[in-house]
């Protein structure tokens, strides 16, 4: 199997690094070779955060090259749009219908329109933040909802069982229940 390539993008504070850790663990659980690359530091202060996750029989570079991205997972609309430079014609674009506004940023409506125009049929826009806020009163687990969605819809070739097991391995007991619930909510 050629490496499967995922880009996760969001802003600092959305828990993106935790999602990377869970994804990596899920890949290991399924016996894949996996490498990922993430940026910490200055980006944590509300700036853009992006991570690459690659898994398959054998992976060399931790970075995706030449637009060979299978899926872009955007935790926020403007960051999802910025990652489109990594997309090819077939790249799936899974986006949380959520916007973290910033000084000088574009209005959400405009971002969504552009996203629809560029991603076309490859766009999966899900209301993860809204659903998690309503059902769990915890917007912060919306990233887990997105990962659950990707697995249920087979946008990522990982089973929901591996994802849930990885969640148990990575997330501290105190927060485990809400994270697992967020994954399961995506089944509906």
């Amino acid at each position, binding site marked *: 199997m050629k490496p499967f390539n995922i880009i996760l993008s969001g802003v600092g504070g959305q828990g993106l690094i935790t999602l990377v850790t869970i994804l990596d663990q899920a890949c290991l659980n399924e016996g894949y070779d996996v490498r990922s690359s993430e940026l910490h530091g*200055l980006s944590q202060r509300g700036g853009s955060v992006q991570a690459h996750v690659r898994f398959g029989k054998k992976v060399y570079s931790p970075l995706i090259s030449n*637009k060979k991205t299978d899926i872009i997972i955007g935790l926020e609309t403007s960051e999802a749009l910025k990652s489109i430079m990594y997309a090819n014609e077939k790249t799936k674009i899974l986006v949380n219908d959520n916007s973290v506004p910033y000084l000088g940023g574009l209005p959400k409506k405009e971002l969504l329109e552009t996203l629809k125009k560029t991603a076309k049929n490859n766009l999966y826009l899900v209301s993860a933040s809204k659903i998690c806020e309503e059902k769990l009163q915890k917007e912060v687990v919306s990233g887990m909802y997105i990962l659950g969605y990707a697995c249920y819809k087979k946008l990522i070739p990982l089973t929901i069982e591996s994802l849930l097991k990885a969640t148990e391995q990575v997330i501290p007991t105190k927060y485990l229940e809400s994270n697992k619930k967020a994954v399961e909510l995506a089944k509906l």
Partner: protein
Amino acid sequence: MKKILLGNEAIVHGALESGVDFVSGYPGCPSAEIGEEFLKIAKENGVYSEWSTNEKVALEAAIGASFSGLKSLVNMKSFGINVCSDSLFPLAYTGTKAPMVIVVADDPSCWSSAQSEQDSRGYAYLSHIPVLEPADPQECRDFTKLGFEISEKFNIPVIVRTTTRVSHQRAVVEIGQITRSRQLKKGNFVKNPHQYCTMPPRVLEMKKELLEKINKIEKEFEKSKINKIENLAGNKKIGVITSGIPYLYVKESFEEMSLSLPVLKLGTFYPVPKQKIENFIKGLKKLLVAEELDGYLEKEIIQIAKEVNPKLEIFGKNVLPEVGELNTEKICLALARLTGKKFALSSDRVPYRMIGQIPRRYPRLCDGCPYWNIFPVIKKIAPGGTIFGGDIGCNMMAGLPPHNMQDYLFCMGASFGISHGVSKATGQKIISIMGDGTFFHAGIPGLINAVYNKSNFLIVITDNRITAMTGHQQNPGMGKTGMGEDTIEISIEDVAKSCGVKYVKTLDPANKEEFENTIKDFLTKDGVSVIIAKHICSLLERRQKSASN
């Protein structure tokens, strides 16, 4: 056992497998997780661990531990090695007693570094200290272990140099057992001034001893498995020599371009195994030296080739950039030039014009950050034309919108010295802004100099009660050590007063009126004056509240 580890975590694991006793460092990105991880597990593993006030002191602490028979590890980001270099060079001369590994994490592309895009490998030439260059988490673990072995065998410190893409790479790592007692090991300092004092004329003798050591280590590295040759069966005319993360990009490029060229992957940057390189390049027509940032290896190889293969065409920095990190595409394009094989970058599928119009998301002060009560107030009160000295830490955000109040930014603590120079040179109004962590790290000598040499500017210490920017590490102003033990809380106000500053005031910037009036008042004073704007970091406050609930 196999485990997913971050490069930095793999370094910690390798060090624990090697039986490290003493860990010191200063937090920075991309190395901070090393020290943090050690502080977390120190007690249960019987390891002493600390955040030191700066990298120089961190190294000196480890030197003391090494002389006392404890295995030590020092961790820092790229610029840390500049700070500690004063003690690093004599350490190469004295050598270590118990083994020591120094981890330096560079940041090509400056993802989270102001200051410069430095290639710290160059310190190998200045200090004559062996440098190992891992490419991934597995090598982070393996090379750390190897570093301790080399250090033990030759009584010399060993530098493990990573980069952001190595330190912050996660991958599957085969790890070994950690067998150590939970008791802190007690060392014993045995006097040996002949070895530990670098007084002349002994110092020149020491230099000779050091160079002899390096010769022996080079011989050892000739045989080392971490300098490995691959794909010898393939094309024999064109080869690649690489080190660190570019090795992974080279492998990926071969997949991408269906190539199979011989590769010499150097795990030891210094000293380089000359014979191994000679043998590898002997029969080649063309060679790509794939290294990130500076072309150090390329220069070495050009020298070696002059003797064994003068006709060899060497490609390096003429086909790969010296600025910014490498990636697979850049290597592919370079290989296309060497091999004549076609490689095309994927065309843009989306209108870039549109994407380019998405405004940049600047890092910003967090919601509730006390600095929101500091920067706008200073800006409002400062008379037109006031010069703003900036320093490293969260207060770097003063230079970004919406504040835009930073007229120079260099390195830890530099603003006091520069502000002093500007003040002396011009007599213009200056306000220098520095955080609490940076003040303890490198601010104090600059402050003393300014007072002593009769400067005239205002200093605002933005004291948010922690070293926040690098992820909340303890500092001397908190009353807590890195391991969480209670200790004396060092008062910035007392330090400033004892440095001879006449006008010093500590206040809470949430009290706007008091803050405004103090700035106004202090701006009229002659000499150096200091306002300590003290208010806890909002993230820390939230964390403390949720922990107490």
